[in-house]
């Protein structure tokens, strides 16, 4: 979870990218330093070799041996060799043989020999036909190369490690904050509209984003409350005059004789007003329940008692409608809940069942002890709710 989150984290990847770019830069820099230095040193050795060869050749076949001694004594890094045209060694201290080199007078790396120090060498034929080899010890150069390559590896490794560690370290905090934001937004989606995304006050991008989202949520919540209170207010505002209207109609109807058709008409008006009032009542009831929201009175309630009371309450109505109402109640089914709301909910279900099935039908209410807790059932043998409408019936105000 964390590792995949880490990898997807922008901070982590950005830090790694910077690390890689930096490491490449360092490598390039060191390579350049190395190339320049090594090139310079190599060229210096080359020039020294060529100058030495010229010097020796100029001394001619008679003096070259003496010159050898002087030169070897002067610069211990140099080794010299004089060979006959056929390749036999005449004088000198070099370990190289003419066959080891291209005798073209150009300095190059001497082939590696076990036990010998690395060197650069030049081989050529003298104007008088002998073979001259001038060799120079390049241990310094090789050591320098090793130092630079080592530095390259070490610094590269250190940068990579440092980059990784700082990428992880830098990402952990944002990741933790994002996790907190996710928890908050999950809670909001679950219906806790008063919840907001956490803001640390650091004013960084995440904070900015959280603040933008929170402002959006404020606005959404305000609109939601407005929409809700508009409906609620409307129902409230309309109910007073409607109640008065109903009272007046009722009063007017009572002033006519029992057989007067006008009385009949006014009675119908009163019935319509009653229907309207009932609708408003339901609207306000829903609003009141929503306002009650999370602070319902949760206590231990006996589902058995509720179902028994409901069965008792509705028995005469069911009998009147010619519907059989039965209750199946397990002893002592107790749950935690809001007793009044549960009673109202079950009564609504039973009321609906009685409303929508014909005489001769059967409605059953049960409170059943279940291995997982408790089950409350209201069932009837009426037409039921069509499959397609089932997700809709729990929505507000839906009517089939």
């Amino acid at each position, binding site marked *: 979870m964390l590792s995949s989150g880490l990898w997807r984290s922008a901070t982590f990847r950005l830090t790694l990218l910077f690390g890689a770019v930096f490491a490449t830069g360092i490598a390039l820099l060191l390579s350049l330093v190395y190339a320049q230095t090594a090139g310079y040193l190599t060229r210096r050795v080359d020039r020294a070799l060529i100058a030495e060869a010229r010097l020796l050749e100029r001394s001619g076949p008679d003096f070259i041996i003496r010159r050898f001694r002087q030169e070897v004594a002067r610069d211990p890094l140099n080794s010299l060799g004089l060979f006959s045209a056929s390749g036999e060694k005449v004088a000198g201290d070099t370990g190289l043989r003419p066959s080891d080199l291209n005798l073209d007078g150009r300095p190059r790396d001497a082939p590696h020999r076990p036990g010998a120090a690395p060197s650069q060498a030049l081989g050529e034929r003298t104007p008088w036909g002998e073979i001259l080899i001038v060799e120079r010890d390049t241990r310094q150069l090789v050591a320098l190369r090793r130092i630079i390559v080592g530095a390259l590896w070490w610094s590269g490794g250190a940068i990579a490690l440092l980059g990784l560690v700082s990428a992880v370290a830098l990402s952990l905090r944002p990741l933790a904050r994002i996790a907190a934001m996710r928890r908050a937004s999950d809670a909001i989606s679950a219906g806790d509209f008063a919840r907001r995304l956490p803001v640390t006050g650091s004013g960084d991008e995440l904070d900015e984003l959280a603040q933008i989202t929170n402002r959006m949520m404020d606005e959404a919540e305000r609109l939601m409350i407005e929409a809700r209170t508009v409906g609620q207010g409307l129902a*409230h505002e309309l*109910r*007073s005059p409607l*109640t*008065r209207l*109903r*009272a007046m109609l*009722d009063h007017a109807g009572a002033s006519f004789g029992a057989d007067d058709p006008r009385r009949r008409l006014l009675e119908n008006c*009163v019935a319509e007003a*009653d229907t309207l009032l*009932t609708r408003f*009542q*339901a609207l*306000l*009831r829903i609003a*009141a329940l929503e*306002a*009650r929201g999370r*602070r319902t*009175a949760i206590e231990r309630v006996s589902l058995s008692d509720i179902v028994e*009371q409901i069965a*008792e*309450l*509705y028995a*005469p*109505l069911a*009998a*009147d409608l010619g519907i059989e109402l039965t209750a199946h109640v397990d002893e002592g089914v107790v749950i935690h809940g809001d007793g*009044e709301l549960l*009673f*109202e909910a079950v*009564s609504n279900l039973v*009321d609906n069942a009685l409303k929508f099935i014909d005489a001769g039908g059967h409605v059953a209410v049960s409170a059943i002890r279940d291995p997982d807790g408790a089950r409350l059932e209201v069932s009837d043998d009426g037409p039921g709710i069509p499959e397609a409408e089932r997700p809709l019936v729990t929505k507000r105000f839906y009517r089939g």
Partner: protein
Amino acid sequence: MDFARNGGVSALPKLLTIEDDAATAAEIAREMSGRGFEVDCVEDGEEGLRRAATNTYDAITLDRLLPDLDGLTIASSLKEKGILTPILMISALDDVDERVRGLRAGGDDYLTKPFDLKEMAARVEVLIRRRNADRKSLRLEYADLELDLVAQAARRKGQDLRLFPKERQLLELFMRNPGQVLTRMMIFESVWGYRFDPGTNLIDVHVRALRQKLDAVDPAPLVHTVRGVGYCLRAE
């Protein structure tokens, strides 16, 4: 209105209406005057509390939300002073918690705005009757009806009525308020203890079942339907 008059001397029952909404106050006054009440209306809480404290009223309707003194404060101050005039709290707040708070503060009943005037009137009348009646009485009698709450036996003309427990409770409610109109909401509240709209016919069928058992003994009707309002127990 002559306020200084002693309420005990007057033949008319007196109602104090503490209500800051003039239209509502006028409606209450009209309805209750029509029922033979003498109604005093006051708009602010201080004045209402002062008048209620004179203890010359039979009942008080009290708005829960007043601009100065809160309805809850008035109710609890009155009870603290030992004034037991029954109070009907009237509030725009329809919430279980609000109702519980109102009743706990000293309201004797609670009604939500907007309300049916007949519902309001019936509640005021029941409150007054309840205060005057001997509530501890375990034997009730009315006309040819008898109800023994200890033996849980009901009789009409000396003949046993076989009633279900809820029917007996319903009969008790009627017999404690004879001649009084009881609304469906009041019946549902007192007999079943729930406060929501149970739908129109639900209470009707229960009353009808009781009435049939009463009529089986003697066809002279006792439980009368009051159209558009509720029911009333009355011997003709």
